[in-house]
């Protein structure tokens, strides 16, 4: 069919029938090869985790130990003073609640509207459907920087800047075409017999959607919800543009403010960073499986 394929195909054709006979030798060779893999893997894992260790370690010492010419691998007198200072000097609780509010409302809007739209594009039959879908798909890869200036002007004209509306509202209008795309793919895999039977029994589209499609789509909804939550929680550019007053700062804006105010006081900075990193680490540990699936499914999100 295409140019790349013959090269990809070639090795597999003549040998396939014999492959069964070599199972055992292959397995033993693999077992041996694995041993060579442990040292680099252990080393790399240690290097990758080290920044986290160093962050925690730094947050447990006082300012004097930061500027020792020879840093210690273990904290000499670990204490939580830096945390107390860092988390009381700035209204971190406030920032945390702001971030949480924005993220939760963003996830809610995305889950509701993205699945509604996906339902319409996968299950309901209406004229123009496919044309509308392909038009809407053009928004899929659209980078935020292209639309941020007009969006800023729009929200400013509506006097809604310096509030959470600009951060949350887009999620309630389809919640990102990519999520619609994903959910649509998932809905297409649900057997049609189910909703046709319900329609025969007189159920309208809304009932089919809420009582049949949504309950069957929990795994996809969890993946979309998780990725949306993390994207909102981690976002820096949009809050930076839309939010100006301190009491409306999200955690990331708070961290940047902290960075400006506590230059070189790394123990406080690392304590604050610890507090910001912790929720993400917990989410990761709890939902690792879904996250990995989500990454593979949505590779495009980069």
């Amino acid at each position, binding site marked *: 069919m295409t140019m*790349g394929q013959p090269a990809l195909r070639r090795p597999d054709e003549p040998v396939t029938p014999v492959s069964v006979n070599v199972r055992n030798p292959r397995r033993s060779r693999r077992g041996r090869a694995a041993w060579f893999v442990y040292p680099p893997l252990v080393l790399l*894992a240690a290097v990758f*985790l080290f920044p986290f260790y160093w962050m925690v370690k730094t947050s447990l010492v006082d300012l004097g130990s930061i500027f020792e010419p020879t840093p210690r691998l273990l904290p000499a007198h670990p204490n939580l003073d830096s945390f107390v200072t860092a988390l009381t000097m700035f209204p971190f609780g406030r920032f945390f609640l702001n971030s949480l509010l924005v993220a939760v409302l963003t996830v809610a809007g995305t889950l509701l509207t993205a699945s509604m739209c996906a339902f319409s594009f996968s299950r309901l039959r209406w004229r123009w459907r496919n044309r509308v879908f392909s038009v809407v798909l053009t928004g899929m890869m*659209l*980078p935020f920087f292209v639309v941020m200036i007009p969006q800023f002007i*729009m929200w400013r004209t509506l006097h809604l800047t310096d509030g959470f509306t600009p951060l949350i509202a887009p999620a309630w209008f389809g919640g990102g075409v990519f999520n619609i795309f994903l959910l649509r793919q998932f809905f297409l895999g649900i057997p049609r017999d189910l909703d046709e039977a319900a329609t025969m029994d007189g159920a309208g589209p809304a009932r089919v959607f809420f009582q049949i499609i949504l309950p069957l789509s929990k795994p996809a909804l969890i993946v979309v919800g998780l990725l949306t939550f993390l994207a909102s929680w981690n976002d820096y*550019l949009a809050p930076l543009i839309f939010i100006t007053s301190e009491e409306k700062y999200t955690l990331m804006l708070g961290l940047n403010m902290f960075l400006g105010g506590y230059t070189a006081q790394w123990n406080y900075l690392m304590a604050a960073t610890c507090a910001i990193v912790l929720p993400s680490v917990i989410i990761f540990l709890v939902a690792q499986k879904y996250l*990995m699936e989500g990454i593979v499914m949505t590779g495009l999100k980069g």
Partner: protein
Amino acid sequence: MPTSSVQRREATAGWIFAAPVILGWIIFVAGPVLVTLLLALTDYSVGGSPRYLGLENFRKFFTSADESFFASVRATALYGMLSVPACVAVSFGLALLLNTKIRLRGLFRAALFLPVIIPLAASSVIWMWLFQPDFGVVNFVIRALGMRGPQWLASETTVIPTMVLMNVWLTGNSMVIFLAALQGVPRHLYEAVEIDGGNSLHKLVYITLPMVSPTIFFAIITGFITALQAFVQPAIMTSDAYHAGGPNNSSLLYVLFIYREAFRFSKLGSASAAAVLLFAVIAGLTWMFFRFSRSLVYYEGGERT
């Protein structure tokens, strides 16, 4: 059999259910893109009214009336050229290591993936501390080895490579994607190589690389699209209330340049023009991706939707 009234009801529902994204597309996609294109032709500041300039904004960029534009293009190009190959190579290597028969694979994978889910703003602060020239642990190790460590983020020559180093730490995403691709390579192909007396290198070169080449291609293109939009690192690590992308504009990545034009200098027209230029580049890359992925991608089970 559906009656026509049922059909009509379904069609109405179709429009209603799709309404959010149709409205969203108009309000947050099509409208703003159009406005950006128009603003690019104007001089416009927050609160003022736009003044038509024609292509003056673009001309200004290329006639070096504004040197920071070239600085940002240079910084972004360097960032992309260094970051994308390094990240693809490392994440592919990590995926190869993880794709062997080992114990605790989940644990290793989790450790290598963990940096990705940390907010980029937070990991940027962590890296500022690790690479702090005088008291950072990295330069301490270098001193202990009897050398003098560089100034990292504080020097024009090393600031971008330092950010690239951090990106290498953040390759978990493509690692997971590569891992999935590697696990999709049919076993019998490797067995065929073994029968022919090939070793691991043969397997890598003749089976693995060709079979996952679409994924590598995908990772390179999306890597560039992502790299061109990098913002958080320079905004956190090398910017403050008065400067952006220091030292001396050497880390003024392109989106930070757009941000600075728009929200620090209130030059919304000029910023829009800059956005249009980058958008054209990204659109080109995206087109390339879809154009070539069709002819490069091979799926054993037939076509994928």
